């Protein structure tokens, strides 16, 4: 599975939707994912890709990880995977 497909699977499970209902321009809000669901999604992403996501639930907009759409999340993960590959 590609990064995109894995992210969609994680988000779909959290939103209790079929992966086909989640598109790249979906926002977490439009999928009905609340703040607890967001934190749980970040945890699932860290576990799946073995990365550390710089996300602070106190102020998500200040975090260096763009969660505005599924596409931005996928791009953020790919960037983190490239950055953190060498450190592991």
């Amino acid at each position, binding site marked *: 599975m590609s990064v995109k497909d894995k992210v969609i699977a994680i988000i779909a*499970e959290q939103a*209790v939707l079929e992966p086909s209902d989640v598109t790249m321009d979906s926002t977490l809000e439009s999928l009905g994912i609340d703040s*607890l*669901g967001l*934190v*749980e999604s*970040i*945890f699932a992403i*860290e*576990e799946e890709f073995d990365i550390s996501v710089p996300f602070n639930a106190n102020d998500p907009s200040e975090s260096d990880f763009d969660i505005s759409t599924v596409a931005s999340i996928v791009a953020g993960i790919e960037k983190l995977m490239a950055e953190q590959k060498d450190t592991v």
Partner: protein
Amino acid sequence: MKRVVITGAGTVNALGHNVADTLEAMREGRCGIGPLEFQDVDRLAIRIGGQVRGFEAEGLYNRQQMSLYDRFTQFTLAAAKEAIAQSGLIFSGTLSAKSGVVLGTAGGGVSTWDANYRSVYEEGKNRVHPFVVPKLMNNAAASHVSMEYNLKGPSFTVSTACASSNHAMAQAFQMVRSGMAPAMVTGGSESMLCFGGVKAWEGLRVMSRDACRPFSANRNGMVQGEGAGIFVFEEMEHARKRGAEILCEVAGFAMSSDASDIVMPSKNGAARAMAGALADAQVNAGEVGYINAHGTGTAANDKTECAAVADVFGQHADKLMISSTKSMHGHLIGGTGAVELLACIMALRDGVIAPTIGYEEPDPECALDVVPNEARDASVDVVLSNAFAFGGMNAVLALRKFA
């Protein structure tokens, strides 16, 4: 002061997943204690307990709920569902705004602590699930009950080791009696039957390796249990007006503190709590027909409790019945008083006294009628439920037949 009645009861414990099954097991003197089953049980010296079996939480709660519900919360919600359904209450408007939930637990989400410590210490993981804290906190069960049933009044969790549930129910009773709340959901739960939870108890060396035999001369310690007992305490006129079925009346309570030793019980502290409950309920010692004992099956508790009963009741101590149902469901620690209250309801409402099973040899230091091994039919009007905790904190409830 208002009068307080019980209009709903629910439970999950080693004897049954509801009140009817639990009371049937108590009537039959069935033992719910058996070999423990969980990871690393082979590293324990103590391998028996009153474990809840066949409780399929996955079918009851969805994935999101399961990620937030420790086993002690799962038990609580199942028992609360039964109790609130029986009461027939629907919490809305003023009833919702004024009614709350006060529950007891000693350890809260022990198995969540255990599983996550295992993950970070033993497995070396550096990341835990984000809901570890809301899952393990001691008030999680009470909070989820409040959310599920729209209880917006006074709500909190009480933690006084083995007396947690009795202290919680005493609080709920006071709130309804004073007119502060028309109804309260109350009781308690515990789920410590995991490697760390049993290992900790093992350290004290007060646990039996074979059976819980309260009051028996050959008793050799306590046996842990798990589960929940939940009740609806309701103001009597409120219950009458809506034609609710009343299980019994909560007549009074008392609390005392030994202020002496962190683990050894005190005859004086126990006696003061029992005498206090009688005074609060305005009943004479001679009216008490049954006491649900704390009766842990340890050498120290049982002889101290019997001596305290003799002090409070004098000659009447030889006429009343006293039994410990821990012999059947084990010691539910912070949830124990709640499950044991079911035996009190059965005594008052059904005229059946639950036995002390596993009783083999009379002990001159426990020379009371402990209802050995077989349940007994008897009409009783007033009963007490004892809880004497580590830390010397005691809470005794007095209940009366509702006629």
